[in-house]
């Protein structure tokens, strides 16, 4: 995925807010990384002071993003648009905060 595409590589960004009350703790970080790995594009999360690999739960955890934190999701690759859509959706649904995973 690392710059393998020579044409049509685009970087798209989307601003998100961590809205679930516990912040990006282990479970949401896991969901996020899983979702990110479904896409071919490189996914990065940009916080105030750092940029991390969205496909790595360990990296996402190091953001220590609490409820209310604003982040920018950056996707680079052929399916960037779809990836952003899916990841943005996770944030909007507050990572299904109250258990009950919805079948998608």
């Amino acid at each position: 995925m690392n710059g393998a595409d020579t044409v049509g590589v685009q970087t798209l960004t989307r601003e998100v807010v961590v809205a679930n009350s516990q912040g990006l703790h282990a479970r949401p970080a896991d969901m996020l990384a899983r979702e990110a790995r479904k896409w071919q594009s490189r996914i990065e999360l940009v916080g105030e002071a750092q940029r991390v690999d969205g496909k790595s739960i360990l990296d996402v955890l190091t953001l220590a993003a609490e409820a209310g934190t604003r982040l920018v999701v950056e996707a680079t690759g052929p399916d960037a648009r779809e990836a952003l859509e899916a990841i943005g959706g996770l944030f909007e649904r507050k990572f299904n905060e109250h258990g009950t995973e919805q079948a998608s």
Partner: protein
Amino acid sequence: MLKLQGIAVSPGVTIGEALVLDSEGFRIPRRFVERSAVDTELARLAHAIGETAREMERNRDAIRAELGEQYAAIFEAHLAMLHDEKLQRELQTAVRDRNWWPEYAVSRTLRRYAKVFQSLDNHISQRAHDIYDIEKSLLRNLLGQRRETLAAISQPVIVLAHNLTPSETATLDRRFVKGFATELGGPGSHTAIVAEGLEIPAVVGVGPFLADVSGGEPVILDGNQGLVILQPDEETIARYRQELEAAQTVAAQLKEIRDLPAETTDGVRIQLTGNIEFPSEAEQCLARGCDGIGLYRTEFLYLASRTEPTEDDHYAAYAEVVQAMAGRPVVIRTLDLGADKMHARLNIEEERNPCLGLRSIRLSLRQLPMFRTQLRAILRASALGDVRVMFPLISTIVELRQARMVLADVMEDLAEHGIAFNRKMPVGMMVETPAAVMMLDIFIKEVDFVSIGTNDLIQYTLAVDRGNKDVADLYNACDPAVLRLLRRSLDVAREAGVPANVCGQMSGSVMFTQLLLGLGLRQLSVPPSAIPEVKQVCRSVSVAECRLIAEKALAMDGAREVKAYLRDQLRRRLAQAVA
């Protein structure tokens, strides 16, 4: 570079590679994989990751069935972290490109993540525990049955540990340990005594620091200042190298006085003997010019193996020391351990307060077969030289009499079997409880010598657990209460004409030499490393001056004042000696 302050318990400076012992005792040295073995090692790593994942899945399923989905999520998160692609990549790169041993790669990489999490100031920092859990599972699967022990060290290292247990220190290969640093512990703790015995620097009570260091990293241990320096910079290393060289020069100078007697300037001869743990230390004492062994601690015979030592095990160790001493006195102390260290073996219930529990002579008197075995060996060794036996922690006359009765009984037994021993072997007791001091005028009539064990005496007098870092500062040899007990003990012994000795850390510290001589002490038993220094101080003072110093110190109100005064007096003495 990270400088950590702990408690200095054994002097000296050393620079070396770290060997990290975590709470499970894993030691992960920096080790490399040969290029040709990289694929095998990668496969081993992959296998361990697979095994660890399966364990986590099993745990997850079990917890899910028992407690529900919410609790199982923890293991789900562990699994996700374990399978993290970035982590996997990093581990593989470490093995393939840097040729790190997989164990080392796991430890280094995961600890780096744990450290990042720990530095976060919100609830995510708790994830560090998860990372340590993953590290432990991986290491367990990598090491399998080959889990390494301290006994298998094969190159010089500085041992960094949470807390060293007596059995760990007893089994480690002493040739390769250059120093100790532990998170727990205080002055007088087990690590401190062992380090002093081995003459290697040690720092204890450092507080949590093991997460900040990995095996194989360079570490500086400053046993003089109580510092542990992780990831030292070039400048610091250079400065410590210089210090090391200077210390070697001083050691060479002290060697010159080896064959001179410990005699004061006004002609009073001081008996300077060594405290030892291991038979091999007898040679160290001789090399420094000692007058004998004033305290031979025998606990290591019991701790070094899982089974109780046989009479021959005891005898072999004692004989080695007695023969090395060639006619000089050797004081062998009977078992001075708490039941807390031995309950697994003796089937004794766990105690709430081991320091005040079944230990030392109390334990020996309850475990007569074990006690008799040791006494038989001591008596047999008494045929080889000037052996004396000493009972620890005597606090009532009944204990002393019982111990003597057992001894007499064992003597009869040996005589019946025609086994040689010294029927007149001197019998002594340790004075290490306030009760023993108060009753010493009675006890002294039934012993041939006494030895004041200052470590325990201070602990029991001041009611301080010297291993508890929160109160360790109250453990102070300069406390006037301690000085008064010392004075009384030495006065009683002198009046009765019974030789008295002081062992324990106080006698090995030159700060107290003048005070002790001033109180009338004529025998000092010190760690081998302290022999030259203490001898030098003895040779540069007069008893008359020491008396004045003791009088003055005993008139003081508090430990701080006494300490400042004794320090100052020592400084003056050394300044004169140099001039």
